[in-house]
């Protein structure tokens, strides 16, 4: 999941230098979250309410965050990795258990989400959910109508069927440069277990992806937001919230570009971004206070309304904009939710096979 992988890493490296310092008498919390992932007024409100200064810093790929955490001494107090990365990081001893007595707002959390995140973090001992979403299809309604004769996409078949994707080749197709998101989708489309680690199954997924490879313009995990918004491409396999950002940018630009997002009927991957505290965090008490504040229904609803992702806080739903709450591509209905699947982290050996397979799909070598 390389999101805007480069643009911000330089700034974040720079800010870390400052984040590590801080005076003993000032209460500080060093937060490291995804870029474009919060309404910044929330941070100001938190400081006003608690007197704790927030040093807010952003990253754009799980890999960058993970590398900092594994190297140790990152100086961060709250980090927000995706759940499948979090699971492995817990094993590596990166995080500390959360003191639930300091987190009264945890009663607001939504069991539908907590049940699923427990697969990565048994008992949710190390993390609480921030936002969650799906991996699906973002498309330019008019261009798809012109190429395929329909303006409604509801199936992975549009992407994995070579005949259909060939028709979209000229108007442009982008795919996430993220094997952990795309290979499970291919397995699901083929009717196999999206969590399969068998090399036969992975080979089948590779074959399916190689068939459509000639029609894919680029594998990239962030450029599709602008490419969709500008009308440069007509289809992207991407993260739900990113596609909604593209939709909003297109609306603001008023160039007549109309973007839509679809959770394919065969099923889509559900991902979770989790707040956690590194084992060597310098300001644990402040970190717990920050996490507890983020679980306040009004606060997390404000964040969802801004970033357009669903959150894992049941009590917040009365404060979430009605349009967002009723949008089944953000908060899927019960029937769709049943079809959503989660992906477990790969063991190192499978990870190597997956990365190698992915290089072959992407570069042809």
């Amino acid at each position, binding site marked *: 999941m390389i999101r805007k992988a480069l643009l911000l890493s330089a700034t974040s490296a720079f800010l870390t230098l400052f984040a590590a310092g801080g005076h003993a008498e000032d209460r500080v919390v060093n937060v490291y979250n995804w870029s474009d992932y919060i309404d910044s007024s929330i941070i100001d409100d938190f400081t006003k309410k608690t007197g704790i200064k927030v040093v807010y810093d952003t990253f754009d790929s799980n890999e960058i965050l*993970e590398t900092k955490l*594994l190297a140790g001494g990152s100086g961060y107090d709250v980090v927000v990795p995706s759940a499948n990365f979090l699971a*492995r990081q817990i094993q590596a001893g990166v995080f500390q258990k959360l003191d639930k007595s300091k987190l009264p707002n945890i009663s607001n959390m939504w069991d539908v989400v907590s049940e699923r995140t427990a697969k990565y973090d048994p008992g949710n001992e190390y993390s609480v959910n921030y936002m969650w979403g799906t991996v699906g299809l973002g498309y330019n309604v008019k261009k798809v109508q012109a190429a395929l004769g329909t303006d409604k996409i509801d199936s992975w078949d549009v992407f994995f069927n070579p005949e259909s994707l060939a028709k979209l080749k000229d108007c442009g197709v982008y795919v996430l*440069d993220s094997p952990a998101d795309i290979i499970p989708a291919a397995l699901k489309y083929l009717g196999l277990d999206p969590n399969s680690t068998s090399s036969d199954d992975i080979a089948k997924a590779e074959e399916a992806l190689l068939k459509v490879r000639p029609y894919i*313009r*680029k594998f*990239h995990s962030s450029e599709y937001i602008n490419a969709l918004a*500008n009308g440069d491409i007509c289809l992207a396999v991407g993260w739900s919230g990113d596609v909604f950002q593209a939709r909003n940018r297109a609306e603001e630009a008023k160039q007549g570009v109309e973007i839509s997002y679809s959770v394919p009927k065969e099923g889509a991957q559900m991902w979770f971004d989790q707040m956690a505290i590194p084992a060597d965090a310098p300001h644990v008490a402040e970190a717990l206070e920050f996490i507890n504040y983020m679980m306040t229904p009004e606060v997390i609803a404000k964040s969802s309304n801004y970033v357009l992702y669903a959150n894992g806080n049941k009590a917040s739903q009365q404060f979430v904009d009605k349009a967002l709450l009723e949008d089944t591509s953000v908060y899927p209905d019960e029937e769709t939710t049943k079809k959503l699947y989660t992906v477990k982290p790969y063991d190192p050996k499978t990870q190597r096979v997956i990365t190698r397979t992915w290089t072959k799909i992407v570069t042809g070598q």
Partner: protein
Amino acid sequence: MSNIAATAAPSSETAAALPTRLAKGFVDRLVIIVPYLWLLFFFLVPFVIVFKISLSQTAISMPPYTPVLDFTDGVSGFLAGLRELNFDNYTWLTQDALYFNAYVTSLIIAGISTILTLIVGYPIAYGMARAPATVRPILLMLVILPFWTSFLIRVYAWIGILKPEGLLNQMLLSLHLISQPLVILNTYTAIFIGIVYSYLPFMVLPLYSSLEKMDYSLIEAAQDLGCPPTGAFWKITFPLSLPGVIAGCLLVFIPAVGEFVIPDLLGGSQTLMIGKTLWNEFFANRDWPVSSAVAVILLLVLTVPIMFFQQAQARAQEQGK
């Protein structure tokens, strides 16, 4: 910068006054020791750390590899570790053609880009060196000025220029020079454009410094003796600017081999360069040992030929004297 190729020539001056010579020698050494210390701390020590990691194995821990060759068990533990060393990560690199192909592709892309940068940069440097002395500082400033903007932003700007609906295509379309937008973005052409643009100052500056020092009366002499301008250029100007050419080429070639940002942003997904391979090993596979091995090999691929080249240069200069 232009002296990269010209290794320190041994001073053959005869002893005039021993004490002053000794004192001078001490100061000289002190001056020389600073770069050596720099190399020790910022090159050799990091390299040894990377090399050490390349001999370990991955593990789910912090940091994500098994310790190797450390002194926690004392000297005997270190020696025992020494006997158990294995080079599995290096043999692994030979088992999959991927790594070899990535190295070769990177070298070819860097080579072509270097030649293109030289072709573009030489006339610029030549023009600057021949410009009136009052204008030269301004021209020099113009070459350096782009560095004041972030490198990333300048590379992003090229996306806006090269994309199908970008500035370049719009201009060519409106001039009716083309009827279909040119596909440049996400191809090798875009990578070459990006590298030539980004590294041009590194080529121009050493070229300029060697061309500026040139004695132009040599050209006048050649022309007086009936040598045509092109002949004078190839027989006098170019050979005299050779140290600048070599320095510029090395300054462009070496970083271009390991370039990651430009191929990632401007190149297509099919571009396989060693920088991306290294990124994959380090970040996607979390295999610090293998990525360290890739980095060590990359260093050898680059330094060994350059060392031979420098030796050959030094020998040629000795013979020239």
